[in-house]
């Protein structure tokens, strides 16, 4: 109605504004498209390949139909469990240090190196563990794989623990001191316990991340076509098995790879969604 009254210049500026809004929305759609495609393909291809056999049988030789990944599934669980035993305690206690003690230059260096460690390519961590453990012990082992993943968990757990413990109100600590409870008991039983939900969020995210890691396992845990629960022997994992199947030229193996992808993706997504909703419920109002 009042178009004639609005100067041409202003109309052009409004047009630019609208065009840029649509451009940014377009960028968002382009960014989400691959996610939708990956989720769709993995679900479709995986659903037709996941069978009961997949969870209960050992891998079948080339040409023989059927077979499963029972050994790789248990292998992944074992290696991730070992990684958690290493990464979680170090991460939590280190994070507690950073939030409660480490304000000085030492704390700055710990924070900085934790961020650096988080940014080091996972394959380099694998090479490091190879030099540290595989070379002296002279063979690939589930233990080496677990340590590699454990090292990767540390920076993730340390930084979320620090942030979450920081959110605990000072009044809780002061109330504890007022009752004459020593500092260290307060730390463990009041501060850390109050931050449990947040710390658990960080742990779940870290587990989800190492669960899907392949590169650091290629020459630490290696692979094993047989049933093995021993940490001093090479051990099969779902990710390495998925990789081997994906690059092989056999249709049967491709189906196994899609099935493994579906199982892995379900696990990581469930962990991620659970972690984020738990974290939000606990601390959403406080922030």
């Amino acid at each position, binding site marked *: 109605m009042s178009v004639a009254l609005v100067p041409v210049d202003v109309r052009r500026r409004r047009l630019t504004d609208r065009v840029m809004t649509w451009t940014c929305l377009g960028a*968002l759609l382009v960014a989400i498209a691959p996610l939708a495609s990956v989720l769709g393909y993995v679900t479709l291809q995986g659903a037709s390949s996941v069978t009961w056999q997949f969870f209960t049988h050992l891998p079948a030789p080339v040409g023989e139909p059927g077979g499963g990944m029972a050994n790789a599934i248990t292998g992944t669980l074992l290696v991730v469990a070992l990684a958690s035993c290493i990464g979680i305690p170090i991460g939590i206690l280190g994070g507690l240090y950073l939030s409660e003690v480490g304000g000085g230059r030492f704390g700055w260096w710990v924070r900085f190196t934790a961020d650096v460690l988080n940014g080091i390519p996972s394959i380099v961590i694998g090479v490091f563990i190879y030099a540290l453990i595989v070379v002296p012990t002279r063979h690939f082992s589930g233990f080496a794989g677990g340590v590699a993943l454990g090292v990767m968990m540390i920076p993730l757990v340390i930084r979320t623990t620090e942030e979450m413990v920081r959110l605990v109100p000072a009044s809780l600590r002061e109330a504890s001191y007022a009752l004459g409870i020593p500092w260290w008991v307060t730390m463990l039983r009041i501060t850390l316990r109050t931050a449990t939900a947040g710390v658990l969020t960080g742990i779940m995210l870290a587990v989800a991340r190492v669960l899907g890691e392949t590169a650091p396992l290629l020459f630490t845990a290696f692979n094993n076509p047989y049933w093995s629960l021993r940490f001093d022997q090479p051990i099969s994992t779902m990710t390495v098995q998925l990789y081997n199947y994906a690059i092989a030229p056999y249709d049967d193996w491709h189906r196994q790879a899609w099935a493994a992808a579906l199982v892995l993706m379900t696990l990581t997504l469930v962990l991620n969604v659970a972690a984020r909703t738990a974290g939000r419920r606990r601390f959403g109002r406080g922030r």
Partner: protein
Amino acid sequence: MLHDHTARSMVGGPPGGPSLAAAERRRSRGADDAFRVVLGAFALLVIVIVFGIGFSLVMASGPSLQKFGPSFLWTSKWDPVHDTFGALPFIYGTLVTSALALLIGVPISLGVAIYLAEMSTWGSAVVLSFIIELLAAIPSVILGLWGIFVLIPWVRGSIEPALGQALGWTPLFSGPAYGIGMLAAGIILAIMVIPIISSVARDVMHAVPQDQREAMYALGATRWEMIRGAVLPYGRAGIIGAVILGLGRALGETMAVTMVIGNRPQIVASLFQPGYTIAAALANEFSEASSSLYLSALIEMALVLFAISLLVNAAARWLVSRVTSSVMAP
């Protein structure tokens, strides 16, 4: 430094109330000090690990460092049979694919970040951010599987013929369409850096003070003019930092790239051709390295990757912390 806490005793320090008996107080102090040392030791472990990685890589790449010296970085003969190793094709492949990833990924990431920080309502921003972050949670081996069976046929059938027709006169887009190659690796890396760059850039934009925006609006600016005039200039250092963080991810990404790049150590102009990256070479050749010189040459490449990722991460953290001083770093 370990005793910093005394300065902040209101928050974290142990109380030393006069009502406690002297002996008990001493005992409690001793336990507190011991606990503090234990916590400090775990924190120190992080520094030890990072230095340990650097040290062990230098030690293990000794034979290669001695034999080839710095020329390892700019010679391109990779011949395990004759024990001659030069890393240039791998360094070239790593740099080209990462550059491609940024070229494709940065404009999209900035659009996403601007939309999430400035254009959407709070509720939809939360949901959309969550979806973008899920993209980062997909294991890279699964993206590689998707790359082999979905992305590569698409690149071979649609993208490369179209690019070849439009830009085939440049050496970059000439030659037959393989599907597998540098272009596919660049696209899959772009998919992987978008969630990182866009979520850090969004945080940076959130850190821009509200009065900057209001000042632009008060001058009669449209929303886009406000973003261009206030948000982007104010957050420039942090946005560059976000891009560099993405670069760090792209340089070291292994599985998805290994599965789509074709793994051929060559330096050619055409992006349609197969290539190789440092990380992919480590993944493929490490467990079958036949001689100790071969192995140490591979470890030297890991050392190069380690050094680059140190530099890139330090630079990124510094830039991002200049804008969001409280969140990312002290």
